């Protein structure tokens, strides 16, 4: 028992150290920090200034910006998590630093958990800066911070898992091509720019796509006015996160063992 606790403690220490080094590298490279924040900040500023006086949709806030802001956050998290962790894994593979992890007592799961936690923390920074900007400059409210945190966490994990899955089998070039095949259609179909009800009979189907459920949760957290899909969105966002993380661990392990 003591040995198991000691092993678990050592494992946790390894994960914490991996996360710490990830964040040290992130903050030492100012260009990466700026690039991470730039997309969300520029979208918030442009949509905030350009659409704050446009009428919104029923049940989604007072103006169009109040409607689109959760979508901007969702898209920001999706691109950030998928690309950042994907390229990190590709660089780890190419530089063979992954092999250090395999040869260490940390294990595959430790590596993936470390990378995911680092990604969620970096994503949280982008999320907090975006929220602070929108709350300070534009007419945005938050009805439930716990629900907001839940939405951010589950979406980060889901798309970080997707990034690891794709990066496990691709190079820098094929990674972006394959990733775009998934996330670009999601950007336009998943309720970022207009309500899913506009899709008519297709609405309930589209509402179950990964980005749709995440934006639905974020929008509910901000407006406090749940959509008719919210119950499905709440549990599906957790399911997507779990499936992506477990799938990423399994596939990544298989790939590294194959050499």
């Amino acid at each position, binding site marked *: 028992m003591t040995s198991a606790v000691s092993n678990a403690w050592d494992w946790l220490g390894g994960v914490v150290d991996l996360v710490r080094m990830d964040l040290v590298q992130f903050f030492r490279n100012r260009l990466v920090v700026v690039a991470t924040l730039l997309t969300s900040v520029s979208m918030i500023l442009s949509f905030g200034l350009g659409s704050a006086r446009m009428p919104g949709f029923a049940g989604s806030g007072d103006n169009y910006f109040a409607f689109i802001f959760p979508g901007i956050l969702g898209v920001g998290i999706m691109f950030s998590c998928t690309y950042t962790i994907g390229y990190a894994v590709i660089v780890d593979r190419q*530089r063979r630093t992954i092999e250090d992890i395999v040869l260490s007592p940390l294990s595959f799961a430790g590596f993936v958990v470390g990378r995911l936690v680092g990604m969620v923390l970096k994503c949280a920074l982008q999320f907090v800066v975006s929220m602070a900007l929108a709350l300070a400059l534009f007419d945005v409210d938050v009805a439930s911070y716990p629900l907001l945190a839940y939405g951010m966490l589950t979406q980060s994990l889901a798309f970080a898992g997707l990034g690891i899955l794709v990066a496990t089998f691709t190079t820098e070039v094929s990674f972006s091509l394959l990733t775009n095949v998934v996330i670009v259609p999601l950007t336009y179909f998943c309720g970022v720019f207009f309500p899913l009800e506009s899709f008519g009979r297709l609405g309930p189907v589209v509402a179950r796509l990964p980005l749709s459920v995440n934006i639905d949760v974020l929008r509910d957290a901000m407006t406090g006015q749940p959509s008719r899909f919210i119950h499905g969105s709440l549990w599906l966002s957790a399911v997507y996160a779990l499936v992506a993380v477990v799938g990423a661990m399994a596939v990544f392990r298989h790939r590294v063992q194959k050499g």
Partner: protein
Amino acid sequence: MSTADTPEVLRVEGLGKVLGPAFRLEAIGFRVERGQGLALIGANGAGKSTLLRILAGLTRPDSGEVVVCGTSSGRWLNKLGTRVGFVQQFKGLPDDLTVGDYVRHQLRMRRVPTERYPDLVRLAGLEAYEDQPATRLSGGNQRKIHIVCAIAHAPDLLVLDEPTSGLDAPTRETLLAFIRELKGRGMSLVVATHHLEEVRALAEHALVLREGRQVALAPVAALTSSRADEHCLELRLQDPDLDAERVQGALFDDEGPADFVLRVDRGPERVRLYCAKDGADPLPRAVAMLARHRIRLHSVRRYEPTLAEIVAELTRTPHTPEVGPKEFI
């Protein structure tokens, strides 16, 4: 008997690995004792790196067994992680981390007390670079970082995949001295290499691979000295182009042909004289002949085959010699 006293550090028996329809590693078997080195030699694609990855625990064999200090790798990948250190042929370092950051991180990851850090950095001679970004170090120093990280947990066996590839001659010498020092401390080595001087410096035995099969396992001395030819002299000339022509002329001077020389093999950096086995030592005769014609020698030595020539002979594959025309007289 403790593992530290066990003479046998590594035993490989009947090892096999299928890597696809075109390549398989099969029937590999050898032993390495404590403080001894085994050189793995063979052409590119012979299976050296695959074998090393299996020994390091990165790839699982399909058949056979790898036993390190009495512990079998079994079916678990990296069961031998604490016993083995692995230095890959190509490996990068992370951006934005200093040498100190990176090595300390590696120690924590390998669950090595960080008190070992100063000793390891001193051992590698990297004290002056501790605060410098790791990626800005020279190739040799980067390789040293990988080696000190690989030995941080004091493994019984260090597996090195072409440790000096891409390094200049002085850096190679420094690195070989460093690895030799580790070996002198009792660490066993398995090293894949294409350089004869590395084989001599690091290994007592050599295993030759060809297309995934083990074609020879022998003491290094037996591989090289048995193929040395004292009737072949290798000349390094001060002016390779001009003096090589004059060597040819000297063999047919007005005092008559130097009939002890049967053949001249001219390469870009050296000229080989294949001499008759007539009972006389050809070295003094050749030196006298060259001196008489004022041919400026940089060095002359009795021929020993290159590693490529040894491998070619053992694997019975045609060896492409160093570039340069062969001229017969």
